[in-house]
C-alpha cells in the first residue's frame, strides 16, 4: 500500500489519517493484505462462495406496521433538529 492508496481509502471511509501515521497505517493494512494473499492461495475449486458464516437461512417477518412515532425521543439526542427534520451540514452534489 502506498501513501496515495491510503489517502483514497481514508477519503472513502471519511476518516482522517495524519501524515505522520500514514506509513504505520500502510504497513498495518499491508500485513492484513498479506494474510488475505495467503488465504487466496488456498484451493477453493468446487467450493461454493459463502455469503454468511452461519449455515442458516433468513426468517422473514409479516408485513405489519409495528413501530409507533417516537420522533420526540429520537430527536432529543440529535445534535440539531427543526420542524421535525434532522439538520446536517449542507451537502449538495
Amino acid at each position: 500500500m502506498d501513501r496515495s492508496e491510503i489517502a483514497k481509502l481514508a477519503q472513502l471511509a471519511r476518516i482522517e489519517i495524519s501524515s505522520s501515521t500514514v506509513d504505520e497505517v500502510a504497513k498495518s493494512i499491508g500485513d492484513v493484505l498479506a494474510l488475505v494473499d495467503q488465504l487466496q492461495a488456498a484451493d477453493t475449486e468446487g467450493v461454493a462462495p459463502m455469503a454468511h458464516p452461519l449455515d442458516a437461512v433468513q426468517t422473514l417477518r409479516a408485513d405489519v406496521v409495528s413501530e409507533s412515532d417516537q420522533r420526540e425521543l429520537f430527536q432529543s439526542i440529535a445534535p440539531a433538529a427543526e420542524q421535525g427534520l434532522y439538520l446536517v451540514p449542507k451537502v449538495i452534489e
Partner: protein
Amino acid sequence: MEWETVIGLEVHVQLATNSKIFSGASTAYGAAPNTQACAIDLALPGTLPSPNEQAFRYAIMFGLAIDAEIGKRSVFERKNYFYPDLPKGYQTTQLESPIVGRGHVEILLADGSSKSIRIHHAHLEEDAGKSLHEDFHGMSGIDLNRAGTPLIEIVSEPDMRNSAEAVAFARKLHSIVTSLGICDGEMSQGSMRFDVNVSVRPKGSEEFGTRTETKNLNSFKFMEEAIALEVERQIELIEDGGKVIQETRLYNGDTRTARSMRSKEEANDYRYFPCPDLLPVVFEDDYIDSIRQQLPELPDARQQRFMDSYKLSAYDADILSADADTARFFEATVAACQDAKLAANWVMGEVSAHLNNDEKSIRDCPVSAEHLAGLINRIKDNTISNKIAKQVFESMWQGECDADTIIEAKGLKQMSDSGELEKIVADVIAANPAMVEDWLAADESKRKKKMGGFMGPIMKATKGQANPGLANQILSKKLNALL
C-alpha cells in the same frame, strides 16, 4: 452521418407494502417528517434489520410476470457511500444474487409491431431518505420517512433505439406493476423513478458509444425530453470533434435543460460486500408456484381479452388495458351499458381528457362508471345526441348527480317529435333561400354535403336538441321535394 441511439433503463419501483423492508415502520406517503423513521431506519447502534416477507413476494410476482428466473437463494450486499439521507453509511441492496434474474417485456410500437426488451435482472433494496436543501441556517434538513421503503430496481439491457421505445417500455413496466398491485404507480410521489442510459453510435456500427446516465426522471414526459436533449447533445459534441464522457447528468423539467452532476471526489467506489446482518433468503419451488398461481391478470392477457370479448382494436385495447384502474372502470361501464364501443370511446375520449385536464387519476374520477353508463344508455336510446351528451357529462363532472336527473332538470331531451321538427325544418328552409338555391344548383354528388349546411341553423333553433337522424330525414325529404 446517420446516428443510432442506444438506450437502457434502470427503474426504481417502490413496493406497496405497509411496512418497510427491514423495519416495522409505516411506508404511508405524506406523513409529517420523521414520524415514520424508527430506530432501525435511523441506524441507531445495536439495531438489526428484520426483513419483510411481502417485499420478497412482490419482487417474485414481478419476476414471474416478466418470465424471469427467480433467485431461490438471494443475498443482500452493502453498497457503501456517505450521504446524510443514508444514516447507515451503506445501502442494503443486492448485487451478485438478485431475487429476479433475466426476463423480458414486450412493447407495442407505433407501427403496430411488437418488440421484446430484455431485462438483465431486478433486485431488492431499500430507498434512502430525503434531503431538503432549503436554508435552515446554512444547514440541510433530513426527512427519513422514506428511508427503508422497499424498492425493486429493474435493470434493462440496452435494447431501445429511440425515446418512443423507452417511453413505451417505461409505460409497460408501470402497467405491469400496477396490474400486479405491487406498486401504486404514483409517479408524482416518486413511486416510480427512471434512470436513463443513453449513447449514440454511427448507424450500422456494432460497438456501443460512451454512455451517460440521466438520473431520477419521474414522468414519461420528462423522460422523453431528457433523452431527446441528451441525444442531440452527444451527436453535436461528436460531430464537432469532441468526445462523450461517461458521467451522471440531471435533467430539469422546468427549464428543459440538463447538467452534469460534477463530483469533486473521485469516481464512486462502493466497496460492495455481503451484509453480515442478513442471512441468505431462500425460497422453495412450492412457495414460488403458489405465488404464480395467484398472479392477477397481466396487461398483455387483458389486452387480448379486450380485443376478443369487446371487439376492440389492438390500439384501443392497449390503451384501455394498460392501467388496471382504467381497465376496471371501462369494464364496469360496459357491464352497466352493454355497449363496449361507446364505453371505449367515452373512457378514452371525454373521461381521459377531463382527467388529464384536472390532473386526476381514474381512481379519483368524479363521474362513476355507473353514471357514465347511465349517460351512454341515454345516447343509445336516442334521448340525447352525442353533442348534448358532452354537455351532460360536463355537468356530471362538476358533481351534478346522474345523467337522467340532469337531462330532466335542464330539459335537454332530444326533440324526436316529427311534427315539431317538420315545422322547424320548414322555417329554416324558408329563412335561407340562398342556401336552397345553392343546393338546387349543385351536382347530385355534392348535394349531400351541402345539405349539412342546414343542420347548423336547425340545431340552433332547437338549442341542439333535434334528433340529428330524424332532422336529416325530414330535411332531405323537404329539399328533394323542391327539385
